């Protein structure tokens, strides 16, 4: 049980998310790099390796990781790049540290969603043989998943709308959130339909931003955190898993990849009863229904029972398991960055530094990231004090 050695998180930073039209990619990234170094009390020279996360087609350039090299101190430095969600970059950075080759590794994810054409880009994720030519994208494929999920378990559109109401409301407590909103279930249900049953207030808005964190080996983490007068937040467990690509191969209501990713993370963290043992969860929900479906995959409730969690207020700020106290992706985090944002939020919760969105006495928190059509990839990281 547990990771082979301890890996600590010693610094976090995120952008104020939103439409950032007056900055370049290096400028957006540099802002969080500066902040994360300051938060950890480190100098760029202390960073032994950087793992960045970005995807060429979202950036609109080949090998676009090169835009970051100067910004992350990568000129004659060590640097690599994961072309996927930032939470996978954090996962990989933790492996870098466990390998013994590095003691301090920085993770930076960026995406300027507003530069390109959001959903049209996601059509290029689908295989060109059987799916891309149908015109599928993240939105229409999510519609298929959402309606299947509703139909299978008798969930209603109100259940999904409630997630959107909760997350937009939570966002008022988060200074980094893009779209805090006071909206009713009716507002959500009346909003423009994008792809049945998904409405515009149930889809993460296009946004820009970056997010960063610094990981360190046990010894270095303790030293670095001591300087800042706090304890490192430790990675207790992590799991990442890919599902089949072809939508027809999957029971989209099962999210088996998430179940397995969560199981691996829970085993490492020694968690048997997630709902009891986890104090706060940050779950990537590009679409409202996904928060409920992923709650099931994460074993917070039985299959088909997530509607009850939102009905009974269990996932509200004052509920048994506050979920997305940050406002989540629905309140506006770009793709690619979103998973790392979830991790940063949980770390800040553990430190008690989450300001108005702080949940009392957080010992153990769960962060989740997803990419691919209908959650083909899921990554779960458990952090704790």
């Amino acid at each position, binding site marked *: 049980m547990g990771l082979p050695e301890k890996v600590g998180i010693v610094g976090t930073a995120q952008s104020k998310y939103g439409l*950032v*039209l*007056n*900055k*370049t990619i*290096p*400028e957006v990234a*540099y802002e969080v790099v500066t902040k994360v170094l300051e938060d950890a009390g480190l100098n*760029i020279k202390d960073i032994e390796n950087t793992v960045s996360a970005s995807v060429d*087609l979202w950036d*609109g350039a080949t090998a676009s990781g090169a835009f970051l*090299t*100067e*910004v992350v*101190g*990568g*000129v*004659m430095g060590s640097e690599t790049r994961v072309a996927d969600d930032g939470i996978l970059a954090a996962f990989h950075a933790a492996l870098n540290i466990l390998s013994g080759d590095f003691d301090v590794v920085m993770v930076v994810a960026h995406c*300027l969603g*507003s*530069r*390109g*054409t959001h959903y*049209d*880009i996601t059509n*290029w994720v689908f295989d*060109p*043989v059987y799916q*891309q*030519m149908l015109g599928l994208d993240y939105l229409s494929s999510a519609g298929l998943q959402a309606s299947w999920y509703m139909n299978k378990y008798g969930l209603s559109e109100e259940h999904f709308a409630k997630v959107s109401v909760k997350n937009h409301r939570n966002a008022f407590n988060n200074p980094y959130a893009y779209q805090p909103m006071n909206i009713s279930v009716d507002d959500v249900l009346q909003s423009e339909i994008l792809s049945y049953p998904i409405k515009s207030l149930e889809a993460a808005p296009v946004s820009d931003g970056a997010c960063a964190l610094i990981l360190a080996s046990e010894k270095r983490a303790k030293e670095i955190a001591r300087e800042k007068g706090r304890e490192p937040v430790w990675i207790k467990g992590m799991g990442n898993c890919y599902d089949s690509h072809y939508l027809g191969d999957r029971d989209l209501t099962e999210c088996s990849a998430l179940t397995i990713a969560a199981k691996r993370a829970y085993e490492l963290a020694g968690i048997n009863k997630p709902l009891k043992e986890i104090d706060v969860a940050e779950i990537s929900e590009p679409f409202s229904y996904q928060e409920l479906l992923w709650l099931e995959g994460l074993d917070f409730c039985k299959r088909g029972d997530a509607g009850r969690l939102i009905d009974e207020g269990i996932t509200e700020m004052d509920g048994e398991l506050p979920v997305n106290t940050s406002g989540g992706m629905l309140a506006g985090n770009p793709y690619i960055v979103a998973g790392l944002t979830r991790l940063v939020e949980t770390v800040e919760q553990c430190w008690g530094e989450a300001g108005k969105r702080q949940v009392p006495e957080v010992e153990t928190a769960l962060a989740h990231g997803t990419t691919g059509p209908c959650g083909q990839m899921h990554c779960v990281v458990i952090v704790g004090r």
Partner: protein
Amino acid sequence: MSKGEGKEEVKEEKDLLRVSINMNLEYRWSGGSYYTKFYRAWKEERKILGAKCSSCGRVYLPPRLICGECYKKIDGWSEISDKGTVKAYTVVYQPFVDPRTGKPRPVPYGMALIQLDGADTTINYFLEENDLSKMRIGMRVQAVWREELEGNITDIIFFRTIEE
């Protein structure tokens, strides 16, 4: 890299199919603080500004946020001439598709790495000249500009050899 030189490709068979999918994606790039200042000076004052690191003194083209050598934010500017010295040259014969248009770029064309007077880096750009025998390292060149500037790198048509 050269296409089609392989000896052992799997032969075209009529029962092996391909599907055609055209990419046509639009992006809007922001110039941020430095490209905005650079291209405003370029368009409005017809000036080329290099970004100058106050720590090591290097003058960069293109302008950028960070001096990678010093890890310092660059906040100085230094005017650069549109004349420079060829540090390396070539003539490109290999045709390829320009990703901005989806159409082949005409070949051959001359290119050079040019160190503009006042810059520490070189700019790779088209030469008017495409006769190899008339190119040499150390030759002097000057930018030939479009009449109406758009505030874009392509305002320079090419660099022309000059005698000084």
